[in-house]
């Protein structure tokens, strides 16, 4: 790909983000201004902003990469990402807006009248936020590496800097305009190239994707390995190799017997036409038929994994910190519902496209299965399938869209994590009194730097996989808290604490094992890689049982809080005097 064009696209996205942010900038005077734009954002802006914020690297790049590798089972990812908003709509949207809380810890405190629950909720918000930020930075590194050959840290650093500038200068108000712009940019960047790709595929004689075998190189193919990878060779093949394989310098023909090989960064392998693609060791090879049909392909325990994933996505969305903070910018509960409806439309419109990239990638970018960088399929396809300047322009467009995805999600998460850090965790250092704008800025820097560091140190997992883990933690902690808190009076602070600790703790432990040790084999591996199916019920059960055992700990003001959560705004009723900015009890 023409790297200067792609670089220009990246620069333009970054610049537009900062400029639009500056346009929406208004001097931030109070916490309310800073966090939630004083609730003056119109529903369409708000829905676009929610879509812009929500469609992360996992949606823009990860879904297509997963479809490329594993096929139809992976369609559950975008379905789950969208259906999560339906669950949020029917159980959470209006009551949460009516609660008047800015953040999840605010809600926990308002409902349960307990600072302990608030603190635990804060820790979980930061944890989930960082878990979600980590793959965004990693994907940014991968993207810049793919399109320009820049070192991996450069892309992550670029995103970190732009997010910092944006959040530090304007807070939520500017972020709302930026996010709304990012949604439409992402949709355009993904949808427009598809038309050209499909035309190119037709012109190529519309080759079928299904077949009895694993993908093969359709013609003599030169594969450049841009990051160290271990590949599994299944059938013997003679390749032209330049670089380093298994620690030895190679130059010329190399016979690869079945087995695994360490291929070093910078090595170029040229495969003959028709050779089956050796897969990176973290991918499972899947034949064309298994790929095309559900529950056949690749991963072990695919029925369990599918159900557990769907559960995590359905119930995790409501617990994502950057999603919830958006609901406070609706003027009332009714508007919160209508906004969510528009969000569902916008998400459905977006998720039609990534699948097509994954399918065509199976035909035109099988080498990504070798390098293991399947997340790059959206980035490389336009340049490969459309010739000349057109392909380069389309390539630049998807690159811009990818950066929009990193920037928007990272900004939203940063605002949420920084907000919680300021209000709850850094309070002793911020003078103790009112939450100052200065403390928010310090928190913003912390909120960005920690996951940035982890992204550089941690191992590279699939973007959508890590994001899936963040969903699992959210589903096992905040989902029960919100559902029971909103709909069940008898939830107590002790019950909430026990449930949050159980669900959040178990899911986090499973996530850490998966990230640190890599995916394990067998049933334990499946249970740890997709924990939601057992951690979510465990959390609900503990929350309910402990609450029932501690009836005296019910919040004294629960009746008033229920009025506040559920009574429509047209009614003139006493909703209590809780306010997130006067929260000293």
């Amino acid at each position, binding site marked *: 790909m023409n790297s200067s064009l792609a670089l220009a696209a990246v620069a333009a996205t970054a610049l537009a983000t900062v400029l639009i942010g500056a346009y929406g900038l208004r001097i931030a005077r109070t916490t309310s201004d800073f966090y939630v734009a004083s609730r003056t954002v119109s529903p369409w802006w708000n829905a676009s902003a929610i879509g812009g914020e929500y469609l992360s690297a996992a949606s823009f790049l990860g879904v297509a990469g997963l479809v490329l590798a594993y096929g*139809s089972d992976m*369609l*559950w990812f975008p*379905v789950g990402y*969208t*259906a999560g*908003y*339906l*669950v949020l*709509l*029917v*159980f959470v949207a*209006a009551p949460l807006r009516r609660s008047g809380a800015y953040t999840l810890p605010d809600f926990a405190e308002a409902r349960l009248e307990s600072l302990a629950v608030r603190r635990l909720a804060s820790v979980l918000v930061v944890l989930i936020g960082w878990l979600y930020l980590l793959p965004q930075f990693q994907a940014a590194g991968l993207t810049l590496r793919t399109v320009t050959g820049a070192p991996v840290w450069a892309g992550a650093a670029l995103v970190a800097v732009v997010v910092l500038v944006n959040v530090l200068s304007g807070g939520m108000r500017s972020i709302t305009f930026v996010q709304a712009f990012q949604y439409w940019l992402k949709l355009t960047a993904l949808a427009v190239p598809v038309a050209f790709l499909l035309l190119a595929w037709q012109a190529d004689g519309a080759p079928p994707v299904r077949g009895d075998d694993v993908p093969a190189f359709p013609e003599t193919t030169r594969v450049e390995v841009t990051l160290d990878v271990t590949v599994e060779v299944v059938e013997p093949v003679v390749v032209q190799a330049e670089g380093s394989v298994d620690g030895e310098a190679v130059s010329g023909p190399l016979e690869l017997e079945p087995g695994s090989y360490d291929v070093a960064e910078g090595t170029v392998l040229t495969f003959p036409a028709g050779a089956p693609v050796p897969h990176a060791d973290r991918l499972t090879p899947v034949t064309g038929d298994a790929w*095309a*049909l*559900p*529950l056949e392909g690749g991963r072990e325990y695919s*029925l369990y994994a*599918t*159900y557990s994933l*769907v559960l995590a996505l*359905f119930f995790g969305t409501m617990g994502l910190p950057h999603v919830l903070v958006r609901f406070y910018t609706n003027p009332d509960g*009714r508007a919160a*519902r*209508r906004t*969510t*409806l528009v969000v*569902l*439309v916008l*998400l*459905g*419109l977006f*998720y*039609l496209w990534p*699948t097509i990239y994954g399918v065509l990638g199976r035909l035109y970018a099988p080498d990504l299965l070798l390098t293991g960088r399947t997340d790059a399929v959206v980035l490389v396809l336009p340049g490969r399938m459309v010739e000349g300047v057109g392909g380069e322009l389309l390539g630049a467009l998807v690159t811009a869209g990818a950066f929009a995805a990193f920037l928007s999600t990272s900004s939203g998460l940063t605002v949420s994590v920084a907000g919680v850090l300021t209000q709850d965790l850094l309070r002793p250092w911020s003078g103790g009194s009112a939450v100052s704008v200065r403390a928010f800025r310090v928190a913003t820097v912390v909120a960005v730097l920690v996951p940035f560091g982890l992204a550089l140190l941690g191992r590279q997992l699939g973007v959508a996989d890590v994001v899936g883990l963040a969903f699992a933690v959210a589903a096992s902690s905040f989902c029960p808290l919100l559902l029971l808190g909103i*709909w069940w009076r008898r939830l107590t602070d002790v019950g909430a604490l026990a449930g949050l600790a159980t669900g959040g703790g178990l899911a986090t432990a499973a996530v850490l094992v998966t990230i640190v040790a890599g995916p394990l084999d067998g049933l334990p591996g499946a249970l740890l890689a997709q924990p939601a199916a057992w951690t979510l019920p465990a959390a609900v059960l503990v929350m309910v049982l402990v609450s029932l055992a501690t009836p005296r700990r019910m919040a004294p003001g629960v*009746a*008033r809080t*229920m*009025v506040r959560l*559920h*009574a*429509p705004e*047209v*009614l*003139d*009723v*006493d909703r209590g005097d809780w306010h997130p900015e006067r929260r000293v009890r």
Partner: protein
Amino acid sequence: MWAVRARRRTATSDIDEQTRLGEVYMRSLIRTQLRLGLLTAGAVLGLFGALPLLFLVVPGLRELELLGVPLPWVLLGVVVYPFLVGTAWLYVRQAERVERDFAELVQRR
């Protein structure tokens, strides 16, 4: 219709004072909304939950094709989205109706 019962105060003051009547009003609102939410989410979850099972039990379904595209891809790749939007639209309409009725009920004098 608002003159049916000649009460001098509306139910909103019952809610404010947390009288037993006020509690009954609030509980009925919450229960109606919860039932609506459970119905909506249950329908969608049930339908989605049945799909993998259906593909497992009736493998023939997986092989069906629509315009050359296998049925699972058509369902999960395209059809689900308008389905979700439609369901959400019905829910929003219904939930707003419940709130309108509730407001009318408790403001009646």
